[in-house]
């Protein structure tokens, strides 16, 4: 009896590591991504495709910025704010960066507490992450309003310099902000699932018959960290360059 249990579940030989492990995983005639839940591998592949999309945006931005003969507006000045009489360059973007990084930190801990089945901490951290995300989107709305209404930036031109500035800015930050907004919605959905105990009772999600479990918190986390990751590149290439 004990013997049959061991052979059917517990006694599989350890998986090979290194390059041999890659060959063994891919040639195993089973699933290639071992020790990874199905949904997590799929999320990684989606994020890979999203990487290509954002790189295409940033590359087209690079191309128009390199090829224009009109001076590029100085982002440091365009995104400066005057707070309490002090003119601080790029301050709003810096605050947004710190907020998004903080949300990544809380998300990472939510995943940890999720796997520990600590419902309370997991849901609190998910809600905090969603709050940071929502405030990020709010600041972006403020930034867009300021640029459109006060500075007169349009996708086809602006008073500060190269007309391609507006097109690149709205395209890149708009697409990123859309990702953050979608993330906030799914963070709230995930938090509700955790609070209701859906994941403990293995209740299936609304679009699938698969049993719910705390892996979805980690998959949610992958998406959220990716949004933060994209911002790292946008911050470096669009705002700082």
């Amino acid at each position, binding site marked *: 009896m004990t013997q049959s249990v061991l052979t059917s579940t517990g006694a599989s030989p350890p998986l090979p590591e290194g390059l041999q492990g890659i060959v063994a995983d891919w040639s195993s005639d089973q699933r290639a991504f071992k020790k990874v839940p199905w949904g997590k591998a799929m999320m990684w592949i989606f994020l890979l495709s999203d990487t290509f999309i954002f*790189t295409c945006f940033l590359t087209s931005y690079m191309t128009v910025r390199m090829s224009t003969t009109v001076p590029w507006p100085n982002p440091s000045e365009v995104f400066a704010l005057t707070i309490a009489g002090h003119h601080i360059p790029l301050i709003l973007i810096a605050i947004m*960066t710190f907020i998004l*990084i903080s949300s990544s930190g809380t998300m990472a*801990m939510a995943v940890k507490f999720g796997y520990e089945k600590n419902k309370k901490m997991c849901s609190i951290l998910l809600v905090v992450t969603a709050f940071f995300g929502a405030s990020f989107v709010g600041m972006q709305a403020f930034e867009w309003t300021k640029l459109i209404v006060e500075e007169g930036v349009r996708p086809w031109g602006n008073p500060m310099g190269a007309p391609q500035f507006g097109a690149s800015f709205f395209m890149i930050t708009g697409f990123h902000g859309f990702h953050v907004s979608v993330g906030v919605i799914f963070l709230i959905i995930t938090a509700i699932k955790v609070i209701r105990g859906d994941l403990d009772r293995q209740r299936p999600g609304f679009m699938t018959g698969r049993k719910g479990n705390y892996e979805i918190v980690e998959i949610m986390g992958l998406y959220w*960290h990716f949004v933060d*990751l994209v911002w790292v590149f946008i*911050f*470096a290439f669009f705002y700082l360059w």
Partner: protein
Amino acid sequence: MAHVEGQQHPIGVYLWIWGLLFVLSAFSYLVDYFHFQGYLRWSLILVFMLMKAGLIVAVFMHMRWERLALMYAILVPPLCLLVLISLMAVEGDYTFVTRASSFGQGSGVPVEHPYRPHGAG
């Protein structure tokens, strides 16, 4: 083991990385604040950016604890993008030179600012 497929790590790891990301972001911001210019500015921006990206992918997204099959499947394909970036850099440079020689001063074509706010001028 109850959760063979879950990623579980002590909370200190995440707090450390969180702190490091804060410091690196502050450094990135200071690059702009202190008005570093030229190659110093660009290399500092790239270094801090790559360090932040690496920390997020490796620790927050748990990539360093995954098996090599997943790691390579996800991290190698983006390297193709370097080809796209280099091609478009060459293209952008060529367009710039063409524009400068065809539309620049001395080419005989009147230079117009492409945007006039409020219909002025």
